[in-house]
């Protein structure tokens, strides 16, 4: 039987009708993982798969299956699973074993899915290419000379290479949407606070959110509805009020001034084609003026490193992870952090410490928060006029491994994604056509691009509405 590119619904049908067993399904994915091991997507597949398979199959046989029973899933290496190694792709946590289940994992486990293993990422989710992993770079399944994006590069590549049904990632400034766009799959960054971060290794606490990377919009919706919800263990979680209205989306706004510089020409052409398609589907496309969006990336690169510098303080060689011995206690701190944290992580700690230091915090950190509020207000105003704001997900398609050496050029890949994190609003990246390129041997490759849709707080249903329509028409 052809098991390629299964969605959640299709897999559910096959499992429930006994056309395929959980074991056959898992064996298919393990075979795929083996065949594609050169792409370096999985860090590890788990050793207790047989137990998981048995439990799920029993549930199916007993007629007690729910949405995700027996569905194989990949988990980003920064989400804790009790008893399983979780390293955030960092040397400092190389042998760390999760001491409890993250809330999202507990919610998934209620269904008895198959947690296949953990997938690669940029160290502590800091990066846009998965090149900053202590396990080495993940290659893009579409063109292995290129990066899969990041930081959830392993999660997106696992979907593009068909190594599981869906994957979880985390998004602080675009880490779900940008790799989804580079790999030609769907990635949802939910509303800030809609999904518990209990058990997610913190990076930028006012920005981080967990979300699904999937084969289509419907799957993203199914997973979101399972993992969302208020959690006493994460006091930033909110009561979800999304599903009680479900109004029809009519107007989609485009902040055109924001697209004038720094975007590849063919990305813009694709974006226009996507807008034309939306128009044909009956949506009204209107121009928006959102001048403060231009500050998004600069604001992000103040607030995020500030929060990073604080969140990374816990990796001191005392409480968990690895330790490098120094002469005295403070020497342990210096050596452990200096030698076991990677260069991008250290760069962000230094930048964050600087923008928070006496004499500079007004100029940088406090000012960045004021501008962040302007951006938030700008979205509020935009959503008085339109239901959804559309942007390209990334200004370029996937770039080549090693191509972006200086930090600023790497950071610019986030230019269209960070604003949704700053405003806390939900956003989805869906496939938005391909652009032609060549690989090193001169062969033509079609590289995927992403269309990003952004909705008001807790209005994920609007994203799903447009995404699903776009896929079927």
């Amino acid at each position, binding site marked *: 039987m052809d098991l390629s590119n299964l969605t959640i619904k299709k897999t559910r049908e096959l499992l429930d009708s006994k056309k395929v067993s959980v074991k056959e399904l898992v064996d298919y994915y393990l075979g795929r993982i083996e065949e594609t091991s050169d792409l370096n997507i999985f860090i590890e597949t788990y050793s207790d798969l047989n137990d998981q398979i048995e439990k799920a199959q029993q549930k199916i046989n007993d007629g007690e299956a729910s949405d995700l029973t027996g569905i194989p899933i990949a988990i980003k290496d920064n989400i804790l699973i009790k008893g399983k190694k979780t390293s955030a792709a960092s040397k400092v946590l190389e042998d760390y074993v999760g001491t409890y289940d993250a809330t999202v994992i507990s919610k998934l486990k209620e269904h008895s899915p198959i947690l296949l293993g953990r997938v690669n990422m940029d160290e502590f989710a800091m990066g846009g290419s998965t090149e900053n992993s202590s396990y080495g770079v993940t290659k893009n399944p579409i063109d292995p000379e290129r990066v899969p994006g990041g930081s959830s590069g392993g999660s997106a590549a696992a979907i593009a290479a068909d190594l599981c049904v869906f994957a979880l990632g985390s998004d602080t400034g675009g880490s779900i949407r940008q790799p989804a766009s580079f790999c030609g799959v769907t990635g949802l960054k939910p509303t800030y606070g809609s999904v518990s971060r209990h058990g997610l290794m913190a990076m930028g606490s006012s920005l981080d959110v967990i979300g699904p990377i999937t084969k289509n919009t419907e799957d993203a919706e199914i997973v979101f509805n399972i993992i969302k919800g208020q959690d006493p263990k994460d*006091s930033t979680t909110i009561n979800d009020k999304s599903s009680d209205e479900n109004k029809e989306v009519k107007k989609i706004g485009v902040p055109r001034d924001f697209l004038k510089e720094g975007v590849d020409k063919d990305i813009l052409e694709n974006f226009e084609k996507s807008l034309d398609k939306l128009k044909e589907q009956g949506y009204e496309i209107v121009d928006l003026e959102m001048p*403060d969006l231009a500050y998004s990336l600069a604001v992000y*690169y103040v607030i995020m490193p500030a929060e990073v510098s604080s969140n990374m303080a816990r990796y001191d060689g005392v409480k968990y992870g690895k330790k490098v011995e120094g002469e005295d206690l403070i020497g342990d*701190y210096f050596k452990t952090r200096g030698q076991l944290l990677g260069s991008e992580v250290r760069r962000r700690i*230094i930048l964050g410490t600087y*923008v928070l230091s006496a004499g500079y915090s007004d100029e*940088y950190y406090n*000012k960045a928060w004021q501008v*962040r509020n302007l951006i938030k207000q700008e979205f509020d105003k935009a959503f008085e006029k339109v239901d959804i704001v559309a942007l390209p997900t990334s200004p370029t398609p996937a770039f080549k491994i090693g191509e972006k050496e200086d930090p*600023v050029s790497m950071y610019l890949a986030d230019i269209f994604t960070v604003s949704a994190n700053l405003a806390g609003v939900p956003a989805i990246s869906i496939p938005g056509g391909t652009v032609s390129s060549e690989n090193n041997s001169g062969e033509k490759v079609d590289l995927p691009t992403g269309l990003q849709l952004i909705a008001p707080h807790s209005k994920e249903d609007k994203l799903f509405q447009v995404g699903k329509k776009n896929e079927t028409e």
Partner: protein
Amino acid sequence: MNKEEIKKIADLARLEISDEESEKMAGEIDSILGYIDQIKSAEISDQGAESRIENASVRNVMREDSEPHKVSENTKVLIDEVPDSQDDLVKVKKILNN
């Protein structure tokens, strides 16, 4: 930024950093700050200048301090992850000299 400034910041952040790396990092941080500096030109109205807390939609959430864990309920699993321990205690080097 120069090498010495980077060293000073790294010191505050408890990061060991080599001369070579601080030299390289000084250039990188300079170029990042060059990009970030554009926020200085953003115009903030009187309303926008309010403290960030005023505008935050998510506020502190409190709970009763009750139902504590049983003593030692989680000790073993947590101590297993500690790099250096002794008798269920976290072990660190002494910080006071005799």
